[in-house]
């Protein structure tokens, strides 16, 4: 890493090294090839200034030294190394040191909500425990959290990079991870209470990297990536750390926090460095469009941006159209939109819409969809706001996948019928790390993965209509209803097993987390207090607004086995007058309207 200075320059876009994006046996081979060129990673701070440059060559050299230091700690091959995945060169160094040392890197979340010190420490601790980590490291900014999280855990070592740099180098031979060994563990955006670590082998990762580069993005030497996505999510980790490395591209980073504070910095970096590929979940584009000033747009040239991937949630075209409209003066072209579909369980990518075509939208009959899950296209003359639904074409499955849309009984469904999306192929995970039960819930013995997502096919193209059945996705954050329910059940006045959480669409077209809780409390002041406490707990732990519905005991619908039925609770809730009335208030989600 170069020292901070005014004259620091980002690594060049690849000019000399022949592009190679297949035939690597492991991530180390991919790094060593990239290290023959001049490209690498560049890190921009919250003011949009370049503060660190890490070329692939420097990364190789530094990772080898660090690997020898780690090996001196005496851990077994395959030991887990938890790395707090702040967007900082330390993450890349430790990730690759693990590759050389034969350890498994585990990326840990780095975002901390206001007032959520304790909740974050607990989350780190649970993840380190679940993966049985031997080593844990965080940047200086997270040192206190990590040291609190690892108290009494008996790890071989936990600390900041400086502590590890002071270790002696072992003279043991470096034996990089081989094709069938794990490349990394990645916690899915799944339940925070029962985190599941997706295990991806080197072979699986490299297959997906090569298909993304060749089929999805059609990467060329002149490409350059720009990203603010968190490195503890698949899109950031795989899409913008591993894909560029395995295609020898330079990449420019902003941290998610810098982006959230000043979204325009994303465009500034794209403009200055002539970035060609950058992705975001829809909310990122929406945030940008909302906070940009017209004058900002005049200053930027985004004409080089040829691939703007959109994924990670069900895609709503409206905010994207707004973004493209606002950014017209910059030369941004709506044809750059590329809808894609994927998940950590498949390394990253499953399908990509064709490049250069923009968003393709299927407009279908709303009634038929609701009644029979049938996506019948509506002729232009019959389309109206009340009778139609829009779904974005997420393109063809990457060639290595087999796929099928199945009903709940596992029977395959024909074209244009909605069901669960199942896939099978070489980039699918080995399983959830040391959790055969959770793995068996989603994977069949013959290797088919139940993605949990709902969609339909038209030929070989996939349309995703709902992400993982129960998951609540708000502003790009996946929240598991079980976690919300668990939180609420710990509030005095609310009983265990008597809360149901789900997302409800508001009139503004957004999703709002709703918790319906049974309570015996009748005193209005006390009810109000319970509601306040629940909202505060949800806010502190998840950083989102929620709507709380307190109902009398016995109101929540149950299945024949006595389990709460979330879907029925949601249907009942949506039909209630109180929800309708609440939405009439301007700030229905705020405390006063919810009292």
């Amino acid at each position, binding site marked *: 890493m170069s020292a901070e200075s005014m004259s620091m320059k980002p690594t060049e876009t690849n000019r000399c090294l022949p592009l190679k994006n297949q035939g690597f046996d492991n991530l180390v081979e991919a790094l060593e090839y990239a290290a023959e060129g001049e490209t690498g990673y560049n890190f921009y701070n*919250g003011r949009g200034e370049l503060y660190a440059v890490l070329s692939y060559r420097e990364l190789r050299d530094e990772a080898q030294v660090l690997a020898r230091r780690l090996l001196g700690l005496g851990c077994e091959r395959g030991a887990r190394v938890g790395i707090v995945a702040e967007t900082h060169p330390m993450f890349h160094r430790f990730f690759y040191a693990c590759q050389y040392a034969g350890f498994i890197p585990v990326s840990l979340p780095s*975002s*901390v*909500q*206001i*007032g*959520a*010190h304790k909740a*974050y420490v607990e989350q780190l601790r649970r993840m380190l425990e679940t993966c049985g980590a031997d080593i844990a490291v965080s940047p200086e*900014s*997270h040192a*206190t*959290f990590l040291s609190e999280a690892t108290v009494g855990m008996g790890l071989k070592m936990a600390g900041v990079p400086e502590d590890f740099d002071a270790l002696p180098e072992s003279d043991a031979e470096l034996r990089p991870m081989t094709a069938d060994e794990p490349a990394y563990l990645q916690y899915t955006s799944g339940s925070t209470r029962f985190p599941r670590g997706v295990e991806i082998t080197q072979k699986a990762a490299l297959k997906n990297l090569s298909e993304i580069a060749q089929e999805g993005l059609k990467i060329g030497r002149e490409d350059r990536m720009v990203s603010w996505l968190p490195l503890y999510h698949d899109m950031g980790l795989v899409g913008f750390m591993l894909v560029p490395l395995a295609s020898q591209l330079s990449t420019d980073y902003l941290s998610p*926090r810098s982006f*959230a*504070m*000043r979204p325009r910095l994303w465009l500034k970096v794209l403009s200055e460095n002539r970035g060609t590929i950058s992705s975001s979940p829809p909310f990122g584009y929406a*945030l940008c469009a909302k*906070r940009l000033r017209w004058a900002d747009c005049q200053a930027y040239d985004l004409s080089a941006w040829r691939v703007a991937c959109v994924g990670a949630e069900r895609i709503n075209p409206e905010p994207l159209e707004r973004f493209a409209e606002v950014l017209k003066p910059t030369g941004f072209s709506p044809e750059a939109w590329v809808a894609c579909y994927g998940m950590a369980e498949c390394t990253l990518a499953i399908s990509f819409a064709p490049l250069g075509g923009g968003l393709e939208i299927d407009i279908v009959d709303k009634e038929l969809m609701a009644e029979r899950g049938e996506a019948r296209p509506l002729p232009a003359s019959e389309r109206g706001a009340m009778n139609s639904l829009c779904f974005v074409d997420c393109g063809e499955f990457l060639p290595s996948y087999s796929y099928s849309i199945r009903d709940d009984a596992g029977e395959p469904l024909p074209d244009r019928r909605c069901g669960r999306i199942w896939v099978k192929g070489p980039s699918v995970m080995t399983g959830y790390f040391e959790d055969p039960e959770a793995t068996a819930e989603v994977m069949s013995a013959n290797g088919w993965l139940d993605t949990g997502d709902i969609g339909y096919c038209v030929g070989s193209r996939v349309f995703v209509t709902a992400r993982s059945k129960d998951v609540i996705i708000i*502003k790009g954050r996946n929240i598991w209803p079980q976690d919300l329910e668990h939180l609420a059940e710990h509030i005095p006045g609310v009983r265990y097993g008597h809360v149901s959480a789900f997302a409800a669409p508001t009139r503004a077209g957004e999703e709002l987390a709703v918790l319906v809780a049974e309570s015996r409390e009748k005193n209005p002041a006390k009810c109000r207090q319970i509601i*306040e*406490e629940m*909202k*505060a707990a949800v*806010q*502190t732990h998840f*950083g*989102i*607004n929620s709507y709380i519905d307190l109902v009398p005991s016995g109101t929540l619908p149950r299945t024949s086995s006595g389990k709460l039925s979330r879907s029925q609770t949601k249907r009942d809730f949506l039909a209630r007058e109180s929800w309708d009335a609440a939405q009439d208030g301007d*700030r229905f*989600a*705020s*405390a*006063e309207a919810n009292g």
Partner: protein
Amino acid sequence: MATQEEKIEETLREILSGSVDSSVDLASSTNFVSDLGLESIQVLEFVMEVEEHFDIAIDMESLSDVLTIGQLAKVVAELVKD
């Protein structure tokens, strides 16, 4: 010291009033989360404005221990002093 903190608190309230419902009373004990219902992105936007106004950088650790306007004023006062 108290007056310095009070002044900062007043400024924080001014900055905040731009982004929250005007019917909410902003007091020293007002909780960002349970009283104002700020979402994480709104919090970051507000923190950015505070940072720009006072020309300081508030680290994540300090922020993780802040619940109320008064507590944030204390953090800011410490940073401004340096």
